[in-house]
């Protein structure tokens, strides 16, 4: 059970990762906003780019928040 015994330093890093998750969520909001604005200007490629960035930011946040059980 590696998860049960972690050092104090690792706990601090865990908190930093939690904060990073929040930053990623907020950043995804910004990316989606840029994407929606690009839709309005008719720049389809730019819109797609920002929407993909937003989706990746959200996915990274979820994966850091909830590690898969098989992760080694």
């Amino acid at each position: 059970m590696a998860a049960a015994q972690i050092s104090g330093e690792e706990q601090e890093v865990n908190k930093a990762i939690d904060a990073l998750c929040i930053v990623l969520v907020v950043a995804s909001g910004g990316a989606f906003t840029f994407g929606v604005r690009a839709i309005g200007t008719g720049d389809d490629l730019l819109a797609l780019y920002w929407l993909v960035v937003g989706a990746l930011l959200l996915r990274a946040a979820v994966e850091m928040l909830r590690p898969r059980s098989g992760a080694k």
Partner: protein
Amino acid sequence: MGRELASLLPMAEAPTRGETRHLLLATNVALPGAYAWLTTVGHPALARGVSGWPRVTAYGALLALAAGALLLGRYPRVARAVGVIGFVALCVMTWVLIEPRLDPERLDPVRAACGAVGWALFALGWGATERFRPIQADSDDDGTRAKPLAARGRLPRSAVIAMGLGLVAALAPWLAAWQVKRPEHALFAHGAALAAAIAIVIVASRVAIEREQRPTRPAVRHRVRPAMSSLSALAFVLAAGVVWLLLR
């Protein structure tokens, strides 16, 4: 009226009684309804060049709203029928009669957003009256409804902050969608913004709640490694974006 009052549930958390309570309830449904009516029905129906029938139905809707609010204390079911179904039906009739004026190109985004908020508050106002419905068969033996289940714990302040930031982040694309002027693009923008807002709220709620629910913190490597694929893809896409920006 006294018998009807006696059949209404006591509002344990509110010190108000009798007429004061009814006045509060009536205000609770009348004010949001009047606001929704003014922004989405009254304004277009009472504009210049609108024929008589839309004005009749618009004023009828306002009367239905007032009647529903006034009847709420004495005849709750009738009040609900008149104040909700009658009011909404007459509003819909007004919109149908003034359909050309509701063209998306003519709609003011700010007024439309205010109207949406007004209708949401109207629904919440009528929903709040549910607490005062007559006692039903599923009530406890002593004539009161079962107490709500108590929460097992309280969320820490950091969870509230995380959720608040998530809500703000979800609101941003939604507001940006209202800035899109061209109708076809606006529809797509609203769809994309809504999907984005839902995804952000879901992830934000997980970030806010799940990290507090873990009995033991997983090792850092168990958190970072699974995310490496997404982070790598993100870094690649961002780098490609910078290159694209430089070459453009």
